[in-house]
């Protein structure tokens, strides 16, 4: 199985399998989660400006006073790698080309060198987050196999993507294939692990925000 053939498979059937499992799993799990319904709240609602589920979806990204001092690392490293992932995936020329090929949408890209820098920062931030999860007693106490596994599954695509883009370490064809393969692994496991928080975080924040907003408390 030489490199070009491997790339063809990975880019062809491999990706089709991954997208298939990803879409199937996500739709299935979202149905399964949100089909459990939510009883309407009969208590008389309070109307306070700035208090609603929608506000919380945005506001919850901002740490409340005092939390930065308590665990700034979680916030800083956490947001760095989340934003980094966003930039690398959605503002990198080849990725935009990929998306355009799939759904026809396109938008201007950032220069490749800048995205490379962001990729490096993202990798660093993820390593910091990993170290934090190992060192902090609470995080280690909470961590299950899934936490380490999903970390690796998210880290690999960025790593292989960076090496492929810079044509480093392995021949391009092989590294590029490994990059797509790691993205496929990410797509396949996403709906069945905590990575599904990509989708469920927004309704969760909305439910939380709405429950408090009904009482007139904007959190």
């Amino acid at each position, binding site marked *: 199985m030489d490199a070009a053939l491997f790339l063809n498979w990975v880019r062809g059937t491999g990706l089709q399998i991954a997208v298939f499992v990803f879409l199937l799993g996500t739709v*299935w*799990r979202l149905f*399964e*989660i*949100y*089909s*459990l*319904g*939510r*009883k309407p*709240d*009969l*208590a*008389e609602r*309070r109307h*306070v400006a700035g208090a609603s589920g929608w506000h*919380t*979806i945005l506001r*919850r*990204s901002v*740490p*409340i*006073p*005092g*939390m930065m001092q*308590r*665990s700034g690392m*979680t916030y800083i490293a*956490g947001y760095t790698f989340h934003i980094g992932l966003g930039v690398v995936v959605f503002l990198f020329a080849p990725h935009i080309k990929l998306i355009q090929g799939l759904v026809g949408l396109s938008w201007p890209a950032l220069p490749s060198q800048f995205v490379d820098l962001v990729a490096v920062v993202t990798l660093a931030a993820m390593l910091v987050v990993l170290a934090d999860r190992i060192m*902090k*007693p*609470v*995080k*280690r*106490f*909470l*961590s*299950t196999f899934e*936490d380490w596994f999903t970390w690796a599954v998210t880290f690999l695509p960025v790593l292989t993507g960076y090496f492929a883009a810079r044509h480093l370490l392995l021949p391009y064809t092989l590294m590029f294939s490994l990059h797509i393969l790691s993205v496929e692994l990410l797509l396949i496991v996403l709906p*069945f692990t*905590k990575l*599904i*928080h990509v989708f*469920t*975080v927004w*309704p*969760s*924040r*909305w*439910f*939380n*925000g709405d*429950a*408090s907003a*009904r*009482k*007139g*408390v*904007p*959190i």
Partner: protein
Amino acid sequence: MSAGLSRAVNVLKEVIDAPIASYFNSCVHCGLCAEACLFYTESGDPKYTPIHKVEPLRRVYEQEYTLLGRLMKMVGLVKPLTDEELGQWQELVYDSCTMCGRCSMVCPVGNDIVYMVRKLREGMAISGHAPDGVVAATKRTVEIGSPMGVKLPAVKAQVGHIQDDTGLEVPMDQEGAEYMVLLSSMEIINFPEYLSAITRIMKQAGKTWTLCSTAFEATNSGIQIGVSDLARVIVSRIVDGAERLKVKTVISPECGRAYTALRWEGPNLIGRPYTFKVQHILEVLDEFRAQGLLKTQGFEEERLTFHDPCQIVRRGGVIEPQRNLMRMVSKNFVEMSDPSKYNWCCGGGGGVSANEDAEEIRLIAFKRKKAQLDEVKPDKMVTACANCRIVLEEGLEHYQMDLPVVGLTEMIAEHLVESEPGSQKE
């Protein structure tokens, strides 16, 4: 599976809903909820991490409401919940959780963890895993009508005493009154000043009000222990009493849990909206102030700070009234760090103060409040929850801090403008 456990799992299956499912799927084990929970921050023990406290609920959700979960249970990949585990979790779900809601406010993925603790308690209590203190209190509330066994004669005695003091009449069972005042046992027993304050304020505001002989108790131990069926029985008394007396508004007293139980959980317990309004006493006083019906004189000179009871402020939504009222009678009102909705709990709410096993961890948790007070150095602390007051005083006593704690309503009453002399025996 023992009878208790099957009842527990069945109840949990009833209460698990889409939000809970969404929360369990969103949790990324980041540990931030622990940083917001005073039981962890002051003890440093990771087991007090809020999301860990609802682990049994997560297990039931995963093994009952997800295809993969059920499959894994069938093939033995995951262990079903055991009665013994529920027993182990009693310490986490009751002793070290006041349901203050700070974790829900901080969770970056938006998990409402306190909502889940409230639901998990339904399963814990029904299978006999609730602390003795809380069980006894609930038993007394259901059988006698008050968690501390206060019966009507005792209330009448207090009323008699207050009528002598204030020279004002404390109406009882007055049909058609505008306000129906409820009391919490703590106030009847430990802080009679509350009722006398209400009496004088109502007089000055010129509002008709009444107590209700069949529903004088405001607190709802059913919510604390987590048994909605019992909570329904308890809250129905208030609803029936209010509807019998055809009052417009029921006033929840200076007690955190009474307010959340009556104002926010009540309608859902009885399955229909109320035909009357429910307001916390602070909301009523603030309205009087706004309508100019509450005339006070003089100002407290000392440096005052306000402890925001969780169930009233963050979980209840009464945020501004207390500040307006404080500014009415104090020139030197200083906010603690992390005030109002960000407040830190006194450590005694949600049934923790009624639970002897929680004594030790509660005093450890109080260090958070001590740190806040050391920072702001007040001369006097004001709050609006009878339970908070006692928990705070015990905490201050334990840490040799000499700081008087006063109820806000009581303090307002002390500054009431004496109405025209002679018309009211003082």
